[in-house]
């Protein structure tokens, strides 16, 4: 029999530190599969965030530069401007990209930086222990919204991808999910397209991925993927948000 599914070459052969059922590791794998398929492992520079995925450089076998919390788009700008023929991507969580890094991200998109952002949205601050995130849903219980997020008091979930779509420099923005196999496949296609948009020098690209965080949602992994499909994707619909590529 022929092996038809195994670990991508650019994903280091080490166990993930992520919790059982976490979406990060699926997304790591997908990014690496795309890197392998595009043949850019030796031509690619990644920028991991602060948060659970800060240790992404332990897994991606490409050059990686850690960014201060939220500043990945600015760090990526510095790298890409100096090395325009390299493929530069950021990998960021919702707190990183949609709260503390909002300004950096919007302006990188507006400048049309030829970088790709992988935006992992799990509606919660994971690494710090489950606090309310900019993308936390109304009513969602977190350690800092113990009574559930109250839109009047805490604001509504921020749709950063829609905001970025308004920026003239953004070319391709899609929201996907890794909560089911079909979604995983679609996410990979979206990541591939986002990288290609960059490689074709068209502008800023971003893939927002709804991703389960069973630990901080205090759900089983199975309940978590159902929550993404039944609840989270109602607020953050799975769709191509912008495609002018």
């Amino acid at each position: 029999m022929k092996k038809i599914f195994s670990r991508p070459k650019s994903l280091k052969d080490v166990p993930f530190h992520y919790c059982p059922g976490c979406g990060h590791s699926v997304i790591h794998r997908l990014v690496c599969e795309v890197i392998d398929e595009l043949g850019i492992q030796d031509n690619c520079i990644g920028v991991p965030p602060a948060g659970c995925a800060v240790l992404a450089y332990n897994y991606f076998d490409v050059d990686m530069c850690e960014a201060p919390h939220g500043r990945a788009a600015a760090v990526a700008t510095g790298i890409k401007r100096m090395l325009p023929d390299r493929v530069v991507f950021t990998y960021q969580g919702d707190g990183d990209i949609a709260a503390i890094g909002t300004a950096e991200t919007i302006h990188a998109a507006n400048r049309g930086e030829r970088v790709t952002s992988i935006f992992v949205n799990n509606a919660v601050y994971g690494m710090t222990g489950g606090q309310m995130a900019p993308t936390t849903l109304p009513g969602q219980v977190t350690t800092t919204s113990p009574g559930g997020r109250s839109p009047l008091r805490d604001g509504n979930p921020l749709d950063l991808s829609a905001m970025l779509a308004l920026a003239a420099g953004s070319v391709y923005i899609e929201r996907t999910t890794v909560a089911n196999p079909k979604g995983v496949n679609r996410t990979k296609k979206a990541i591939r397209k986002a990288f290609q948009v960059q490689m074709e020098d068209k502008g800023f690209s971003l893939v927002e991925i709804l991703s389960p965080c069973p630990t901080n949602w205090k759900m089983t992994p199975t309940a978590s993927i159902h929550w993404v499909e039944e609840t989270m994707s109602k607020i953050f619909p799975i769709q191509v948000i912008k495609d002018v590529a």
Partner: protein
Amino acid sequence: MSAKTLMRGTHVLGEAAIRSGCRAYFGYPITPQNELPEYMSSAFAKMPDAVFVQAESELASINMVIGASCTGARVMTSSSSPGVSLKQEGISYLAAMELPAVIVNMMRGGPGLGNIAPAQSDYFQATRGGGHGDYRVIVLAPAYGQEIADMTRQAFDLADKYRTPVMILGDGMMGQMMEPVIFPDPVDVNALPAKDWALTGAKDRPSRIIRSLWLDPPKEEELNWRLVRKYEVITEDITDQEIYLCDDAEIVIVAYGTAARIAKGAVHRVRSQGVKAGLYRPKTLWPFPSHELAAMSKDLHHILVFEMSAGQMVEDVRLSVEGRCPVSFYGRPGGVVSTPEEIAGVLNSLGANVVKKSA
């Protein structure tokens, strides 16, 4: 070497940076240093291999510096006091990631928004690291146009040599003042030593990581001790000062940058009135030139520290002198610029006391 040209300090700094191989500048407008990004933008517009980005904030610009430095480029950012406060996050990361970069602070009156007049109130911030964590930044303090040119070259060389951020600490007056300058010849960027740590894509080599997170405390401690050892070598190697008319001096005034020029005028004035005064001017603020000052202090009647602040460097002077002679302070914070006459008056009053004591 260039022909002698008359240029304002910010432009001198920009031209010297380009001649030092700087090929990336990231900044955000703030008075009084805007002529520097303006100079960089127009110069880089004519250089296809150079990058100028006006960022959306000082935070973004210092993080662009991190990214560009990662690739091995010689990179600079500049700002003034409130903006440099915002850059401190990135400067801490640069130190931890051991990335070279040159950061210019043309200081203005503070705290808060303060004003746009020349001041020296960021000495603590510059010389104590400025951001979080156990680290230091090399701080160079030019006082003359020519020195701005020379120290800018030195700043880029030191940053690369020690893989550490270097700050050029000036003030609004220094940035605006026009002085004659002779520039060193431009360096050949391609002939600079290769950076075997830079991120360029893992072609024909293992992938590289530039990071500052070390979750395992012994690993973080190892980084800290490595930095300490580096700082010891830097202190040994680069500490520098100007010692002016101190051979027979009974009173020495310690001042840096613009304040030192005012102080020098004051020394001339009181010498003509019979007071044996000299000037000790630190050219590196970190590492602070303690050694020579400590050596001369045992023979002095008095040391006067003059700063355009409420008294910051005076602490380093006292740490250097360790009580071997009295140290007093005179300062004008808030962007007020003293005159040589004013400082001469202070020296004279001290001189009179010194004479009385020794009589």
